[in-house]
């Protein structure tokens, strides 16, 4: 199993690591039992994601997908950010080993969960389709 240079770069120097104490939205997905948890924080101004940070517990590709996904949504409108797919994340990283594709799904979910949280906080009723958002999502559901 070899990671691409992009994955290694984002693992070694992850962008946007950290927390936003006064975040407008926070999304957390995965669980410790499965070996990965991603937590994404966003600041939103006029529908634009002005700042984003993440904290991730997980393997190198979990860290790298979090890093690149946050990069991909930074400065984007919420609607643009909602179009983020795990496929786009995998492509941006020049590929992931098959066993690690589930990390890209988690990253997509984490972003969407943060946006959903933002809408909830704003009292805006917007249905967001999260691939596998519930907390009890089984570890292997993303492998297939």
């Amino acid at each position, binding site marked *: *199993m070899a990671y691409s240079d992009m994955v*290694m770069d984002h*693992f*070694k120097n*992850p962008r946007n*690591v*950290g927390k936003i104490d006064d975040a407008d939205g926070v999304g*957390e997905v995965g669980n*410790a*039992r*499965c*070996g*990965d*948890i*991603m*937590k994404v924080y966003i600041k939103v101004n006029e529908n634009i994601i002005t700042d984003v940070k*993440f*904290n*991730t*517990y*997980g*393997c*190198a590709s*979990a*860290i790298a997908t979090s890093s690149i996904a946050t990069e991909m949504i930074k400065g984007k409108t919420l609607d643009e950010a909602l179009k983020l797919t795990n496929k786009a994340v995998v492509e941006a990283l020049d590929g992931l*080993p098959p*066993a690690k594709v*589930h990390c890209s799904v988690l990253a997509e979910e984490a972003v969407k969960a943060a946006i959903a949280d933002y809408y909830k906080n704003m009292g805006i009723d917007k249905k967001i389709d999260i691939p596998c958002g519930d907390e009890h999502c089984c*570890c*292997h559901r993303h*492998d297939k």
Partner: protein
Amino acid sequence: MKLVYADNAATTEMSERAKQAFLDNIDNYGNPSSLHNMGSKAAQVLDNSRERVAKALGCESRELYFTSGGSESDNWAIKGAAISMRKKGKTHIISTAFEHHAVLHTLESLEKQGFSVTYLNVYEDGYVRTEDLKTAITDNTGLVTIMYANNEIGTVMPIAEIGAICREKGIIFHTDAVQAVGHIEIDVKKQNIDLLSLSAHKFHGPKGIGALYIRKGIVIPNLMDGGAQERGKRAGTENIAAAAATAAALEEALTDLEKKNNRVSALRDKLIDGLLKIERSRLNGGISPRLSGNVSVCFEGVEGEALLLSLDLKGISASSGSACTSGSLEPSHVLLALGLPHEIAHGSLRLSLCDFNTEEDVDYILSVIPEIIDRLRDMSPVWETIKANEGKR
């Protein structure tokens, strides 16, 4: 950058003597079955190598069969013994929950064929209890297969006691000694072992060769049918250079073994002590008896692969769980067998030293790991939660 290879339980570098023995025979290419001089020269080296390996185990040459490695030896021993015991009407096997996959998956395939397997508890400390073995034995038990030393956590099983119990009950006893041979003094006769698997690349020998000891009197069918090699028990043109290198490596490994083990276990203990200073870390498996080079720890709030790759970037080769399964998402079955919760088992690190490692290696590892752990914990929401809960208490 300093390079430290601390993954010797996965595989080892060939020793200079082993390489030399290999190279000395790379042109000794005759087929030992051939009648001509080229063949006899090869056959002589094969015989000599077999004698030397047999001597190192305390058995006779004709009880030792070369194979392609530890996995083949395990498959042959267990599948063979299963067929033999079924002929005697027995279908119950006893093993442990933390065997290597070469044993576990073989047992699973036998379970599908109607055998029943009892997996003995290895408790939190990673040791089998002989009382549990005695309790598990029934009239239907035909085989006990228990590893000599665990590949992930290095705990060493009470093999002589297990051997004595099995011999008394007339049950075949196989031990996967892949991690033990070359690292622990073994005497298959005194220890009442019937079948023993070894693999050369775990003691600075070449890859692609191992052996199975089959005690005289134990009859198991072939796994590999074909030519009359290995006295008709294991077909396939013999790998002379590798056999010679195996013998050389094993002899070298056993020379001054106690001295080497003392040195290596001192390094190990220094490493363990240093690592356990890190908060929320723990040693996996009991400290004694333990392979002299094995360090297995878990760090809470950190995931093993990220830890491994961070170490690799610092020139340190290590492993998390066993190498074979590290591509998977499941934490190691060995750590789970110890009763560790998944979330803790995910944070495991195995550093396996050998006599090529130095004190500088250990110091270097200890200088590097804490900052890696810190960095990973800093970005870990799991660690955040742990800390938050601590604060609450």
